C-alpha cells in the first residue's frame, strides 16, 4: 500500500511534467489558436468567422476560444505571456499595452509579413498607421475596432433648460450646469441631480472618460508623450483641468461615487455622461418610457477651431511569437477584418471597425440607416486617437490621475501647477 502511494507521488508529477512539455513541442503549424474578447457579441462574431474560415481552409485550421475569465483580459494575457501559454492570435489588445509587449519581444512584427503593408494602408488612414507604428519602425498590431468617447445627453433635460442643443463649448457647458443645479438643489443645500458625472477614483484608466478625450478635443489630437517626454504640458491640458475643476468646485459634477446605485443617467439623476457607443444597446433596453437621449462631441474651449478629436479606446489584434505560423495567422486576420466581415462585426457588436471612409462607404450605408445613433460615432471615427506608442502608459495615466484628483476634484493645486507637476513626474519616469 505504502509503496503504491510512494509511486503515485513520484510518478504523477513526472508524467504531468512530461505531458506539458511534449504538447508544446508538437504544435502543428497549420492549426492555430485564436482568443477573442469574452463579451457575448464578440464571441458570436469570432465563432462565425472561425467556422467560415475553417470551412474554406480545411488544411489550415483555426481553433477559437474567448480569453479566459479573470479580473481583466489584460491580466489574463499577462499571465499567459509569463506562462508562455499565449494564443497565436489575440483580438482584444489595448493599444496602450502593445509597446510594452513589443519591447519584451513577445509580439510578431506584422510589417514583416507578406501582404500586411498594402492591406493596412488600404484599410486605414496614414495617421492611424503612424499612430500604431512603434518607435523602432515596426508595426506590432492591427488597428481593429474603436469605441469613441462622446458626450451623451438627456434630450428632455436639455429642452427643459431652454437650450437649442447640447452644450458644445466650455462656457455653454458651464451655464447649462449652473441652470440645472439651481433647479435641483434643496433647502438644505443637498444637490439631488447633477449635470454630469465622471468617476472620481484615481484609477488610471478612469481618465479615458474625462481628461484624455477632453485633452484630445481641445488640442486637436495632440500626444501625451512624445520623444520619451511629457507632451501634455501645454495650454490645452491646463484649460481642460480648469474646465473640470470649475465643474467640481460648483458641485455641477458629483464628488461622491454614484456608480453603485441605479443607472444614474437613465434615472435622470445626471443629465450628461462622457461615454461610448456601448451605451446605446444598454440604454435602449433599460430606458424608461419616453426617455430620449443623443450624442455629441466632447466639449471644447470657446475659441476652438477645427475638428473635435476624442479618445477611441482602441482594441487591436496581435500575433504572439509563440505562433508557429505567423503568415497563416495574418491570413486569417486579414480574412476576419475584410470589408464584408467588418460590416458583420458592426452589425453583431455595434462597435466601430477602425477603417477609413466608414461613414461614406456604401457597404455600411444600410447599417447606419438602420442605426441612426451610430452615425454620430461613425462621423466622430474620422477624428479619434488611441494612445501614443510608448511604454509605461499606465503610469503616465496614473500620474495624471493623481494630479487630476488634487487639482480638479479637491482644488489643492492650480491647473498650471498640477500639469507642471505631472509633466515633471512623467519626464522622470522616462529617464529611469
Amino acid at each position, binding site marked *: 500500500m505504502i509503496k503504491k502511494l510512494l509511486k503515485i507521488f513520484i510518478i504523477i508529477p513526472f508524467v504531468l511534467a512530461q505531458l506539458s512539455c511534449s504538447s508544446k513541442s508538437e504544435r502543428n503549424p497549420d492549426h492555430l489558436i485564436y482568443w477573442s474578447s469574452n463579451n457575448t457579441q464578440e464571441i458570436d462574431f469570432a465563432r462565425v468567422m472561425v467556422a467560415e474560415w475553417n470551412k474554406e481552409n480545411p488544411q489550415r485550421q483555426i481553433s477559437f476560444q474567448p480569453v479566459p475569465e479573470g479580473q481583466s483580459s489584460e491580466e489574463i494575457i499577462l499571465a499567459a505571456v509569463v506562462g508562455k501559454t499565449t494564443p497565436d492570435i489575440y483580438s482584444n489588445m489595448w493599444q496602450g499595452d502593445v509597446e510594452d509587449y513589443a*519591447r*519584451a519581444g513577445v509580439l510578431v512584427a506584422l510589417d514583416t509579413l507578406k501582404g500586411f503593408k498594402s492591406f493596412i494602408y488600404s484599410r486605414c488612414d496614414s495617421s492611424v498607421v503612424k499612430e500604431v507604428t512603434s518607435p523602432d519602425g515596426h508595426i506590432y498590431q492591427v488597428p481593429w475596432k474603436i469605441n469613441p468617447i462622446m458626450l451623451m445627453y438627456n434630450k428632455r433635460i436639455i429642452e427643459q433648460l431652454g437650450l437649442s442643443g447640447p452644450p458644445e463649448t466650455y462656457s455653454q457647458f458651464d451655464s447649462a450646469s449652473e441652470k440645472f443645479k439651481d433647479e435641483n438643489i434643496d433647502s438644505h443645500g443637498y444637490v439631488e441631480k447633477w449635470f454630469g458625472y465622471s468617476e472620481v477614483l484615481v484609477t488610471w484608466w478612469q481618465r479615458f472618460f474625462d481628461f484624455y478625450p477632453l485633452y484630445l478635443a481641445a488640442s486637436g489630437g495632440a500626444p501625451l508623450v512624445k520623444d520619451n517626454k511629457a507632451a501634455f504640458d501645454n495650454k490645452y491640458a491646463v484649460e481642460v483641468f480648469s474646465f473640470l475643476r470649475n465643474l467640481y468646485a460648483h458641485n455641477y459634477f458629483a464628488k461622491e461615487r454614484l456608480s453603485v446605485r441605479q443607472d444614474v443617467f437613465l434615472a435622470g439623476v445626471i443629465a450628461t455622461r462622457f461615454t461610448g457607443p456601448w451605451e446605446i444597446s444598454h440604454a435602449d433596453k433599460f430606458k424608461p418610457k419616453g426617455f430620449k437621449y443623443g450624442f455629441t462631441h466632447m466639449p471644447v474651449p470657446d475659441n476652438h477651431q477645427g475638428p473635435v478629436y476624442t479618445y477611441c479606446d482602441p482594441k487591436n489584434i496581435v500575433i504572439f511569437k509563440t505562433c508557429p505560423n505567423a503568415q497563416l495567422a495574418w491570413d486569417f486576420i486579414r480574412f476576419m477584418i475584410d470589408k464584408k466581415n467588418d460590416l458583420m462585426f458592426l452589425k453583431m457588436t455595434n462597435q466601430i471597425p477602425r477603417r477609413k471612409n466608414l461613414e461614406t462607404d456604401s457597404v455600411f450605408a444600410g447599417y447606419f440607416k438602420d442605426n441612426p445613433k451610430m452615425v454620430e460615432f461613425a462621423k466622430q471615427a474620422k477624428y479619434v486617437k488611441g494612445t501614443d506608442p510608448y511604454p509605461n502608459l499606465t503610469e503616465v495615466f496614473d500620474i495624471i490621475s493623481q494630479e487630476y484628483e488634487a487639482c480638479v476634484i479637491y482644488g489643492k493645486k492650480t491647473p498650471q501647477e498640477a500639469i507642471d507637476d505631472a509633466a515633471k513626474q512623467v519626464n522622470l519616469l522616462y529617464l529611469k
Partner: protein
Amino acid sequence: MNFKNKKIVPYLLVLPYIIYFLMFVAYPVIFSVILTFNKWNIISPMQYAGLTNYIHLIHDEFFLKSLGNTLIFLAIHIPLQIIIALFLAEMLNQKIKFRGFFRAAFFLPVIVSGVVVTILWQQLYGFDTGLLNRVLTAVGIGRIGWLIDPSWAMPSIAIMATWKNVGLYIILFMVGLQTVPQNYYEAADLEGATHWQKFRSITLPMINPTIFMVVVLSTIGGFSLFIEPYIMTGGGPLNSTLSAVLYIYKQGFFYYHMGYSATLGLFFALLILGVVMIQKKFIEKEK
C-alpha cells in the same frame, strides 16, 4: 507491513503538507526575497538591481504616507473596537431578554462578505445621497464629507471596519468574562463596591490576556487593510486612505514593479513581525 515501513508512515502523512508548504509558502517567500534585488515587470527578463529597491523604499514618500495612513487606521480602529466590543460583551453577558438574538445579530457582519459591507457603507456615507448625512442634517448637525474629505475618509473606514469585525471580538471578550470567578464579584458586593469599581478592579485585570489577544489580532488585521479602501475610495481622496497593503498591491499589479513591490512587502512583513513581538513581550510581562 514491517517495522521499516512503519517508520516511514509519519513522513508520508505529513508529505502533502510539506509539498503544500514548499510550493505555496517557502518558494514564494524565497522568490520574493530574490525579487527584492531585481527589477522585473513580469514580461521582460529579470534585471539585477542590487539595493536599488531598498534605497527607493527609504525615499518613497507614498510608502511613508501609506504607513502613516495605516497607523491612523490602527489608532482609531483598535481602541474603538476594544471599547465597543468590551461594552457589548459585558451587556450580552448579563441575563437580558433576547440575548441569543443579540449575540447572533452582532456577529452577523463578521460573516457577511467584506465587499458587500463596503458597498453598503459607501451608500450610507454618500455626501449628498447618503442616509447618515440626512440624519445629521435632520438633527441640526451639518453634513460630513465621510469619504470625500481627506481628514474624514480614514476614520470613516475605521468606523466601518469596527462595525464589521466587532462581533468576533465580542465573542472573545465574552469567553474572557465567563472565566472570571463569580466569588470575586460576590466579595466585592459584600464590600459595597459599585459596578464601575468591580469592572475596573476585577473584570479588567482578569481579562487582560484577552485584551492583549484582541490587540494583537486587531493589529495584524488592521495592518492588512485592503478591501475597504480598494473598493470604497481607491486610496483617495488625496491618498488619505492609501493603506500600505493597497500601495504594495498597486506597485505590483498596476505598474508591474514586482521587485519593488516585493521589497515593500518584505519590509512590511518585518514591520508587522516587530510590532507583534513587542506586543508579545507586553503580554508576557503582564502574565
